[in-house]
C-alpha cells in the first residue's frame, strides 16, 4: 500500500440549513480499495460530490487533501486534473452530444486512448447521445468508459452495482480490477447493497450513518453479514463506534 492519497478531516456540509455531513474523517492510501456503506440518505452521495468539488455544496468546516495538496476550494476540473474521478450514480443527460464526442474530448484533455480499447464493450453506445435513453446498465458502462479515459489515481464509484445484472456486474468488476486496481489506482466503492464487494474485496469498509462515518472494519464479509441480519440500526448502537 502506498502513501495517503485522499485525506478528509472533520468535513461538515450544510444544505438549506440542514446538516448533511457532520464531521467526516476518511483516509485512502495509494492502491487501496475501500468501501463506504450506509442507509439511504446517510450522506454517501453528498460526500462523494463534495470530494469532487460540486459547487452546489458548501463546506463550512473541515479540509480535503489529495496527495500533498489541500484541495478544499479547488474546482471540479482542477481535481480531475490532479487524478480524481467519480462515476455518478445517476448521470445527467447531455442532449445532442454523442457519447463518442464526449469520450474524445476527455481523451484529448487527458491524452488517453482508452475508448478505442473498450470499443467492443458497448459499441452501440458511442453513437448515442450522452445518457439519453440509456438503461441502468448502459449508464454504468458509460460511466466506467469515461473513468478509464480520465487516467485517474483515485476513482469513486457511486452505486456502480445498482441496476446491473449479475453478468454485467461481474464484467464491470473485472474491468475495474484489471484496468484500475491492478495498476495501483485507489478505489472507493459507495454501495447500498454491497454486491460489488464480493468481486472487489475492499481492504477497509466504512459505515456511514447520519452524515458521519461511524465504523471502519477490515472484514467486509462481517459488515455485510451484520447489516443483512440487523440492518444499520445495529451499527448505531455498536460500542466500537469510530470517531
Amino acid at each position, binding site marked *: 500500500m502506498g502513501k495517503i492519497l485522499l485525506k478528509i478531516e472533520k468535513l461538515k456540509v450544510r444544505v438549506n440549513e440542514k446538516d448533511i455531513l457532520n464531521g467526516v474523517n476518511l483516509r485512502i492510501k495509494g492502491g487501496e480499495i475501500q468501501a463506504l456503506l450506509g442507509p439511504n440518505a446517510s450522506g454517501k452521495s453528498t460526500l462523494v460530490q463534495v470530494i469532487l468539488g460540486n459547487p452546489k455544496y458548501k463546506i463550512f468546516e473541515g479540509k480535503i487533501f489529495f496527495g500533498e495538496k489541500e484541495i478544499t476550494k479547488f474546482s471540479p476540473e482542477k481535481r480531475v486534473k490532479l487524478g480524481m474521478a467519480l462515476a455518478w450514480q445517476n448521470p*445527467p443527460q447531455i442532449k445532442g452530444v454523442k457519447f463518442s464526442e464526449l469520450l474524445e474530448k476527455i481523451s484529448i484533455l487527458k491524452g488517453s486512448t482508452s475508448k478505442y480499447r473498450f470499443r467492443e464493450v458497448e459499441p452501440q453506445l458511442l453513437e448515442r447521445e450522452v445518457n439519453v435513453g440509456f438503461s441502468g446498465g448502459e449508464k454504468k458502462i458509460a460511466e466506467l468508459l469515461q473513468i478509464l479515459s480520465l487516467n485517474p489515481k483515485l476513482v469513486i464509484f457511486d452505486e456502480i452495482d445498482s441496476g446491473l445484472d449479475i453478468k454485467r456486474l461481474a464484467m464491470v468488476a473485472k474491468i475495474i480490477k484489471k484496468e484500475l486496481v491492478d495498476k495501483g489506482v485507489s478505489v472507493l466503492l459507495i454501495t447500498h447493497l454491497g454486491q460489488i464487494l464480493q468481486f472487489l474485496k475492499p481492504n477497509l469498509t466504512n459505515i456511514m450513518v447520519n452524515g458521519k462515518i461511524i465504523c471502519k472494519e477490515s472484514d467486509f464479509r462481517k459488515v455485510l453479514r451484520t447489516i443483512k441480519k440487523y440492518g444499520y440500526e445495529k451499527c448505531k448502537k455498536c460500542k466500537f463506534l469510530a470517531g
Partner: protein
Amino acid sequence: MVMKNVKNVNFWQVNHKIKNIFERRGVKVLPSPKAWEKFNWVRKILKEKPKEGYFIWVKKTINLPLEACVSIASLKISQNLTNLLVIEKGIKAKVNAVCNATKNNLYATHKAKGKLILKEGVFLEYNHIHKWGEKDFVSPDYEFVLEKNSRLIYNYQNLFPPENLELKTAIHSEKNASSNLNFVINSLNSKIKIKDTVFLEGKNSQTVVRLKLVGRKNSQIEAMSQIFAEAPGKGHLDCQGLLVDKTAKISLIPQLVCQNKEAQITHEASIGKISEEALTYLRMRGLTEKEAIDLIVAGFLEK
C-alpha cells in the same frame, strides 16, 4: 460551411465589388441590377432597380450545389442588396449562401432583400449561413414563393452574431407545397429580432418551423413565429430557447392564425437554462466551465 474554392463560387461579392461570377450550364448568374435591365419579367418581380446583389436563374437540374458569397472586408461598409433566385419547373437544386464580415470589428451594415421563387414541382435546399463581427448591423428580409407541389428546406444558421440582427422571412405556399424551416441563432452582446411567417395559401400546403435560439451574455432575442392557415393545410411551430447567461433575455411569441376549419396548426415553445447538474458533470470529466457550456450549447443546437 466554407467556400473552399472561390473560383467555383457562382456569385462572389466583397464590399460593393463583384469578384467572381461563374455560370454553369442551365444556370444564369448576373448582378441583380443587370438582370433588372436585361429581363422584362425581372422588372415585374422587382419593382425598383436593385443597387447591388445577385440574380440566379436555374433552368436545368444540376448536381452540384450553387454557391453565393457576399462579404464585407472593409471598415464601415454599408451593403444594400437585392437578391433574386428563380428556379424553373420540376428542378432540384441546392444553394449555399454565405454572408459574412471577414473581421470582427468592421462596423458593417448588411441589408438584404431577397425573393426566391420555386416554380411548380421544384425541390430546393437553401442553406443560409451568416457569420458577423460584434459591431455589425444585419437585416435580411427574404420572401419565398412556393408554387404548387414545390418543396423547400431552408436552414438559416448564425453562430457568430452581429450586434444587431433583424431577420424577416415570409413563405407563401400554394397547393401541395411544403416547407421545412430551421433557424439556429446564437447571441452574444446582441440584439436580435426575428419574424418568420408562413402563409398556407393552397390546399394541402404544409410547413414545419423550428427555431433554436441561444441567449448568451448581454443579449436580447425577440422571436415572433407565425403560421397563417388560409387553406386546409398543416403546420407546426417549434421554438426553443436556451439561456446561457443571467444577463440574456429571450422572448418567444408563437402565433397561429387559422382561417380554415380544416387546417391543422400547432405549436410548442420552451425556454430553459443550462442544467447546473450537466455542467458539474462535464466539469467532473475535466472540462472547464466554458468548455462545458460550449458543449451543452452545441448539443442543444445539434439535436
